[in-house]
C-alpha cells in the first residue's frame, strides 16, 4: 500500500468536504414550532416591544404590556424546559411542550397562578369535527384501517365506545375511541356531543416510532405533569387547568384549527405504540381504564 497520510488538507479539499457534509445532513423537521411560537406570543409570554414600530408597520398584533411577572414566568419557562428535558417529559409520538409552569419540590410540575391568557373552553359544545378524530371505522375491522394491533378498554363501568375513528394512513394512522358520559365517568364542563351523548373519555392509540412529533402538547399555567407508570410502562399524568393539544397532520404540519382544549390526560408508551386517555376526572379513574386495555 502506497498510501501516505498527511496531516494537511488544502482549503479547497476542506471546503469541498464541508459543502458535501452540509448537503448530507439530516433534515430537521419541526412541525408545530411556528404554531407553538404563535401560541406563546398570543398568550402574552413576551414583553411588549420597546419600540414596536416595525411590527406595527407590518400590521403584526401588539403584545401585552411589559409586566415584571411575565418576565419571571418566562424565566420559569426556560428553567422548566431544561428540567422537562432532563426528566424526559415526552413519549414516542407525543411531545410535551412546557409553557409557563414553575417547579414544585415534589418532582411534579405545576403552573404558576399568573395566567394572563389561558384559553377558556368555549361555551358552545365542541363538535365531532372539531375533535379531528378522522373517519369512523368499525371496531371489529379497525386493525385493518391502522395496520397495527388495536387495543381498546374492556371495562364494564365504561361501556362500549360511542364511536371509533381512524385518522391518517397506515402505518401512521391514529385510532381514537370515544365513550359517553355515565355516573362512573362523568363528562367535564362543556363536553363534545356525539350521537346525542356527552363525550367523557377519549382513548387514543398511535404508533410513536413512526413520527415522534405526531402530537404536541402545550401545558398551560395551572397544569401539572408527573411521571406515572402505566401497566409497567413509562408514562405521564397531566392534570389541572385545561391545556392545549396541538394536533399535527399526517405530514407533520400543524393546522390553525387543530388546537383544542383538553382535560386530564394519561399517556404511556407500550412497545411501538403510544396510548393516551383523555378526560378522566382523576388518576385512579384513568388507571382503571388503562388497566383494562387489551
Amino acid at each position, binding site marked *: 500500500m502506497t498510501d501516505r*497520510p498527511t496531516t494537511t488538507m488544502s482549503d479547497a479539499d476542506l*471546503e469541498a468536504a464541508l459543502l458535501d457534509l452540509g448537503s448530507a*445532513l439530516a*433534515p430537521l423537521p419541526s412541525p408545530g414550532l411556528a404554531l407553538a411560537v404563535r401560541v406563546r406570543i*398570543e398568550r402574552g409570554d413576551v414583553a411588549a416591544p420597546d419600540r414596536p414600530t416595525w411590527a406595527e408597520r407590518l400590521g*403584526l398584533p401588539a403584545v401585552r404590556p411589559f409586566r415584571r411577572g411575565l418576565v419571571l414566568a418566562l424565566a420559569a419557562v426556560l428553567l422548566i424546559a431544561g428540567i422537562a428535558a432532563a426528566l424526559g417529559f415526552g413519549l414516542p409520538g407525543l411531545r410535551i411542550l412546557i409553557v409557563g409552569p414553575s417547579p414544585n419540590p415534589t418532582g411534579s410540575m405545576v403552573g404558576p397562578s399568573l395566567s394572563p391568557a389561558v384559553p377558556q373552553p368555549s361555551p358552545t359544545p365542541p363538535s365531532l369535527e372539531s375533535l379531528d378524530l378522522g373517519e369512523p371505522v368499525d371496531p371489529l375491522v379497525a386493525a385493518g384501517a391502522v395496520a397495527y394491533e388495536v387495543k381498546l378498554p374492556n371495562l364494564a363501568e365504561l361501556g362500549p365506545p360511542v364511536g371509533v375513528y381512524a385518522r391518517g394512513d397506515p402505518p401512521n394512522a391514529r385510532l381514537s375511541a370515544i365513550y359517553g358520559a355515565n355516573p362512573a365517568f362523568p363528562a367535564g364542563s362543556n363536553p363534545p356531543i356525539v350521537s346525542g351523548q356527552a363525550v367523557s373519555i377519549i382513548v387514543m392509540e398511535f404508533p410513536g416510532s413512526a413520527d415522534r412529533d405526531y402530537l404536541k402538547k402545550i401545558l398551560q399555567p395551572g397544569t401539572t405533569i408527573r411521571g406515572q407508570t402505566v401497566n409497567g410502562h413509562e408514562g405521564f399524568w397531566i392534570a389541572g387547568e385545561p391545556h392545549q393539544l396541538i394536533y399535527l397532520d399526517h405530514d407533520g404540519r400543524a393546522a390553525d384549527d387543530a388546537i383544542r382544549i383538553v382535560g386530564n390526560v394519561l399517556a404511556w408508551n407500550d412497545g411501538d405504540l403510544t396510548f393516551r386517555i383523555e378526560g378522566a376526572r382523576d388518576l385512579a379513574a384513568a388507571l382503571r381504564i388503562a388497566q383494562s386495555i387489551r
Partner: protein
Amino acid sequence: MAYEDLVRRHQDAALRTACIVLAGEADAEDAVQDAFVKAYAALGRFRSEAPFRPWILRIVANEARNRRRSAGRRVGLALRLAEDRPSDDAAPSPEAAVLARERRGALLGALSGLSEDDRLVLGYRYFLDLGEAEMAEALGVPRGTVKSRLSRALGRLRTQIGPESPLARVASGGPDR
C-alpha cells in the same frame, strides 16, 4: 399571523444553527422556539431595511449558547447525517457510500471538537450558505473580520482532523479516493 409565516420561513436555518451549538435536537428546538418568542418582543429594535435571517440567527445562536452554558460544558453537536438514499442511476456503489459516510462522520467528529464560534462561522458558510454580509450580521462582527475568522476556523478544523482521519487519507490522494 404574519410572524408565524416568518417563523416557518426561517425555522430550518434557525434549527440548523441551534444544532451547531447544542448537542441535542430537542434542546435545539426549544432554543429556537424561545429565540423566536424573544425576537418578537425585540422587533422594535430590528431595522426594517435589514435582512431578517441573520438577525434571527444571531438571537438563536445566543439562546443556544445560553442553554449550553447553563447545562454545563457538553461536547458534541446535534447535527446528524441523513440516511443514505440511492435515488437515481448515479447513486454511488455500496462501498463508495460507506466511505463517504465514514468521511462525513469523521468531519462531524472534527467539528464537534471546535469551539462554538468556529463551528458557527463554518456552519453559516458551508451549511447555511450565508454570504459574507449575512455572516457578519449573524456573527455580530465587522464584515472585514469574517474572512479571517473563517480562515482561522478552517485551520483549526484541519488540525482537528489529524493524520489518521479518513479525510486526511482522501487529501493524500491514496487509494480511497
